[in-house]
């Protein structure tokens, strides 16, 4: 099926189903129930799930396969966003050329940065990419936004103004990003009993790209090229003494993952035609690292899970405030209720980053394989010893 083996094919089918049915799956609670705050089925968040999913899948092609830890991948995402917004400004609000251009520009950038950064490995590589990303941030934030040559519009962020040429824009087309006239923001709401489900054009458009990106990633992981990348990670000495120059392979992986980031950046701009320098800040690069590790670096589904979890937490956990907490623990005696609220308070609302940091530290220490490894461990607990033995060979394969 699709040129994949049975296991990968099943995984891909599950991901397709999840993506298509996401407006239902992530919206399990009726609109007016107390649990509705945990719903994630609204377009804005769903879009983020898939777009950052693309970003993390791409990052994983580099980090998961070759082991090169880039701390500057957000630069490509930012470049992609800027490129897309420029297409909106100059030519048309149609997202297709914008996204193509975003990927191309990100590819050019990643060839340049990758070519230089990959001259070093290990920690030097991480710091070089970090330096490049911070430089790009500084360039976007101030250097390239001077009156003589305003490429990024500095602090305000690049956006589309009425005075912009938009050469191919004409009457009848929506004044916002659209796909041949179909606005990205268009949402169909379906009410079913107490539930309200949202079907958003932008989400399905990005979701389609995510599926494509995911499929490509499976193919890369399973290809001889993917095997070569894993071999480089495993033992570069043997690779060189097998007559292979590792650099073209790693550069190719770097560029592919840079293009993924560019695609994600372009899609972000397509959902909301705005590009700001903060998208390139190194904390943004750190975030994609967190997503990938949290989900499981080197696994296929891990980055998608990690991206989803982090974006979900960012949106949901940060919305929980003391009132909500008091509601939850209202069944307890008053004193105990206050204690519980005080205990949990630092970890929710504005403190969600603390929760994220702690989860991350715990995952790196106890579960280096991320959520996927956690899932595998749990699955193994439920299976008999015989099954465990049989699993041994497949489980040891890092590219599960």
């Amino acid at each position, binding site marked *: 099926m699709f040129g994949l083996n049975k296991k990968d094919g099943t995984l891909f089918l599950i991901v397709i189903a999840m993506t298509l049915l996401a407006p239902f799956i992530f919206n399990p609670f009726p609109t007016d129930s107390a649990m509705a705050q945990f719903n994630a089925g609204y377009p804005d968040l769903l879009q983020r799930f898939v777009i950052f999913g693309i970003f993390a899948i791409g990052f994983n092609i580099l980090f998961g396969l070759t082991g090169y830890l880039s701390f500057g991948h957000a630069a490509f995402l930012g470049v992609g966003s800027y490129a897309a917004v420029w297409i909106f400004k100059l030519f048309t609000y149609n997202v297709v050329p914008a996204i193509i251009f975003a990927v191309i520009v990100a590819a050019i950038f990643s060839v340049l940065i990758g070519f*230089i950064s990959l*001259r070093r490995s290990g920690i030097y590589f991480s710091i070089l990419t970090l330096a490049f990303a911070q430089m790009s941030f500084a360039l976007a934030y101030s250097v390239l936004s001077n009156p003589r040559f305003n490429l990024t519009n500095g602090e305000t962020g690049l956006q589309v103004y009425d005075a912009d040429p938009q050469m191919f824009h004409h009457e009848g087309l929506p004044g916002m990003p659209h796909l041949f006239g179909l606005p990205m923001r268009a949402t169909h709401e379906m009410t079913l009993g107490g539930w309200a489900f949202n079907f958003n054009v932008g989400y399905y458009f990005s979701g389609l790209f995510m599926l494509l990106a995911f499929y490509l990633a499976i193919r890369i992981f399973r290809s001889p090229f993917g095997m070569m990348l894993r071999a480089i990670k495993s033992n570069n000495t043997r690779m060189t003494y097998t007559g292979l120059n590792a650099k073209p392979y790693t550069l190719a992986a770097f560029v592919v993952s840079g293009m993924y980031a560019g695609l994600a950046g372009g899609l972000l701009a397509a959902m909301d035609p705005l590009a700001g320098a903060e998208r390139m800040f190194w904390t943004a690069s750190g975030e994609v690292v967190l997503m990938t590790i949290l989900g499981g670096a080197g696994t296929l589904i891990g980055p998608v899970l990690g991206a989803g979890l982090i974006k979900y937490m960012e949106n949901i956990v940060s919305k929980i405030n003391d009132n909500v907490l008091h509601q939850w623990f209202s069944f307890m005696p008053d004193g105990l209720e206050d204690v519980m609220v005080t205990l949990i308070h630092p970890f929710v609302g504005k403190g969600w980053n603390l929760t994220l940091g702690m989860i991350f*530290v715990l995952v790196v220490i106890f579960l280096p394989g991320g959520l996927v490894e956690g899932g595998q461990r749990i699955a193994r607990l439920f299976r008999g010893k015989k099954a465990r033995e049989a699993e041994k060979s497949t489980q040891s394969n890092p590219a599960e």
Partner: protein
Amino acid sequence: MDSFILQILNGLDKGSAYALIALGLTLIFGTLGVVNFAHGALFMIGAFCAVTLQRLLSISHTVIDETQKDFLGNPLKVEQPYVIDWFGPEIGNGLIEWSVPLAVIFAIPVMVGVGYAMERGLIKHFYNRPHADQILVTFGLAIVLQEIIKYFFGANPIPTPAPDALNGVVNFGAALGLEVTYPLWRIVYFCFAAVIIGAIFAFLQFTTFGMVVRAGMADRETVGLLGINIDRRFTIMFGIAAAVAGLAGVMYTPINSPNYHMGMDFLVLSFVVVVVGGMGSLPGAVLAGFMLGILESFASTTWATTTIPGINQVIIYLVAIIVLLTRPRGLMGRKGVMED
């Protein structure tokens, strides 16, 4: 000429901070072989030691001052810090005013403790894991530490002034007939940094402990074979490195009001400094710290920023990239340290 000297001076204080952080990073990297992304957080915690001490000293209670009246004619209620009750107004106010320099004393045990806890509690389990894992776990730790500080102190910068006596401006070109006015505290900061750096080098150079540590940095295995408990010494080195970063943070508070993400801001640049100086080279770290600080200061002059807009924002990264590509080991890096 005047402005030339001024730019060098301007670069010194930032350079001092870079040098101190980079020195600690290099000590940790050289001894323990760990890439510590949480080192900036230590700098930040140090800065917040100063804030904490200032707050502790300012804890006050309400007293009714009969000598002053409010606009209704009632005796005025004023907040009076306890230190004034205990030591009298002169010493009490003096303590509050001098809280930043005093915080140096307060910060040393705190930072050594934090460093010790960090090393024993977390980092020691990562000695034999890949560098990527070390980066990741210390990065996570840095997030946790800065979020904890944010929880207690809020997200806004907290002004922490220097004592009035050290707060002025000096013109120290006067003797030479030049006009070079410069904030006094920055001079203090530079001298402080110079003393600390000198002390570290002297410690490593002239004590047996330092000798073992230096030997360990050069060849860990051999020193381990000599039956010397190198790990315990390295733990102490981690504590010292943490204290250095913390003190750098304490003294930096009057220059820049501390906020919870200042550590990360400095960390990225300090890493660049370490790499430019040469991974594992202590003199390299110090040299590169001052060099990049001064370079940044020159790039911030109006002349430079009008010629190439924004050059001050990117100069350090540009230099780092050029250095790494032409001298992959950095300015003073040794062979065999972190090579692939």
